[in-house]
């Protein structure tokens, strides 16, 4: 339930006009617990990530006892490793298909359709979609594992139509985890877009309607431009959330078969903890972190959320 949504303009704090010497430091004091916690447990791992990726630390063997500083060796190895580039591609596919396209398009479609249907259907369908999002991630992962398993629900349903389904998690692991992530995350986009659509004054679209614009034209030419900020924010947030997905893939496919569904977080875990190459795994984590950071900066720069 990671949720960040555009919010309303807030009244904004009124600042106290007078300043006295020494006061500033005192005023900052309440920030201390939060700053200390974030410095140690948030900035700490980030810095450690950079440092650790420059060592050959291992979980076992001589290099566990005495890791050495190896400079950029891990990165050199990483960029020459086909596995890594495959993971990059899989991550891009996973994020692109499940977040950018899947969750956003389905979320928008649901938001539009729910606004154009009766109250009962609206509450029931939206409640079901939201429950999938509220469930703990590991439970959602089990539910979808069961859904896509060889003797699972999907293949049973196909069986009613005399079709023999493939072993989804083996034959189409990426498709399975992409659909799973759409199932799990669509509610978020749906709610964001629903809130955004509620803000579009009906008079405007009605006016366009009278001018003879079709539904699609009204949507593309009027609605979309009016909610473009919500769209770009949502795209960015779902992208970042999906980039960090581990549990869903780990439970459903374990990154396999082979490495067919090993996205960057899964690859980092495997390299560090299964193959005991902590330094190498840390280098992968650092790259993932940098990708996330770039996205965040783009988001902050492009959208310029007012921090007021």
């Amino acid at each position, binding site marked *: 339930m990671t949720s960040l949504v555009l919010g309303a303009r807030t009244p904004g704090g009124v600042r106290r006009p007078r300043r006295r010497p020494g006061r500033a430091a005192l005023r900052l004091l309440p920030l201390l617990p939060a700053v200390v916690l974030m410095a140690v447990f948030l900035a700490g791992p980030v810095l450690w990530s950079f440092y650790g990726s420059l060592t050959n630390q291992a979980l076992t063997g001589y290099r566990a006892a005495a890791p050495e500083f190896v400079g950029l060796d891990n990165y050199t190895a990483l960029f020459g490793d086909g596995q890594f580039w495959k993971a990059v591609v899989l991550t891009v596919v996973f994020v692109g298909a499940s977040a950018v396209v899947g969750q956003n398009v389905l979320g928008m479609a649901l938001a539009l359709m729910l606004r154009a249907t009766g109250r009962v259907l609206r509450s029931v369908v939206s409640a079901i979609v939201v429950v999938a999002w509220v469930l703990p991630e590991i439970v959602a992962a089990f539910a979808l594992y069961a859904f896509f398993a060889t003797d699972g629900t999907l293949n049973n349903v196909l069986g009613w139509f005399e079709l023999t389904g493939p072993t989804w998690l083996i034959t189409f692991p990426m498709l399975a985890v992409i659909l799973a992530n759409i199932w799990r995350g669509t509610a978020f986009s749906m709610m964001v877009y629903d809130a955004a659509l509620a803000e579009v004054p009906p008079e405007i679209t009605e006016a366009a309607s009278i001018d003879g614009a079709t539904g699609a034209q009204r949507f593309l030419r009027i609605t979309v431009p009016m909610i473009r900020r919500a769209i770009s924010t949502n795209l960015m947030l779902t992208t970042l959330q999906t980039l960090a997905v581990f549990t869903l893939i780990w439970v459903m496919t374990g990154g396999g078969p082979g490495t067919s569904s090993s996205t960057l977080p899964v690859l980092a875990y495997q390299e560090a903890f299964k193959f005991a190459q902590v330094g190498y795994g840390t280098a992968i984590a650092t790259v993932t972190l940098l990708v996330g*950071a770039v996205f965040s900066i783009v988001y902050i720069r492009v959208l310029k959320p007012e921090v007021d």
Partner: protein
Amino acid sequence: MTAMTPTTTSVVTTPRRTPSVASPRRRTGRAFVAVVLIGVGVAFLVPLAWIVLAALDPAATVSVKLPESFTLDNFSQIMTWDQTFRPLWNSAVISGGTAILTVLASVLAAYPLSRYQMRFRKPFLYAILFGTCLPITAMMVPVYALFVNLGLLDNVPGTVFFLTATSLPMAIWMTKNFMDSVPVSLEEAAWVDGAGSMTALARVVVPLMRPGIAVVFIFVFTQAWGNFFVPFVLLFSPGNQPAAVAIYNFFGTYGTIAYGRLAAFSLLYSVPVLVLYLLVQRFSGGSFAMSGAVKG
């Protein structure tokens, strides 16, 4: 203006416009929409239905099916301290600790950010915003290495601190926005009475933003409750492991034979967050509803 606030909407908003006299074309359109919605609803429902039906099925399999007979045996079999209650208790301790610490730290931090004009306020808030976006799961490998050095592995408070630190950026952001909506004029009265800023915060501001604090608390609690990867890497002994990890272990060691019990455990584990979600909706029903929150 795009400040970020929590998703505190009642599921979806009610459209302002209801079509008056439906034309035949519109009626087919509506029927089409209804059919598609029912289809999507069923597709989303089926995996959920599996959890509920398998939990009640004495012979559960991986496929959703109506049990031939209903039973509570799956539940009674897992109703043991080691299997279910201790992990759930650990989850409650970890999530509760995280939520309390986060709320305390973020209310304190939000006050100067909301009330004072400071030179570094803007950069600080941008940094916070940046922090909310970092892919935390990518960090678990370095986090493990850091915890080795801090001597905090398999340590519940250590895990709570980490979870707190990762939820703080979001929580500070939310709390600050909630605090911004509390008028300063009310505190001024307290200042006149000679109260310090912290007293004003405790006596005036916090009571006024109680629903907002509840939203932050529940939000953080739910996130920590559902988190699997962090305790999976940082906590080892069964005495410390929360339900998310216990349930994964159960899947690993009994999974292929005991789907009914797995589903029953999953259900017990999910109920608290579903209840909390309903609570959020109640708290947020009024002033914090997201409807009308997104502007172009």
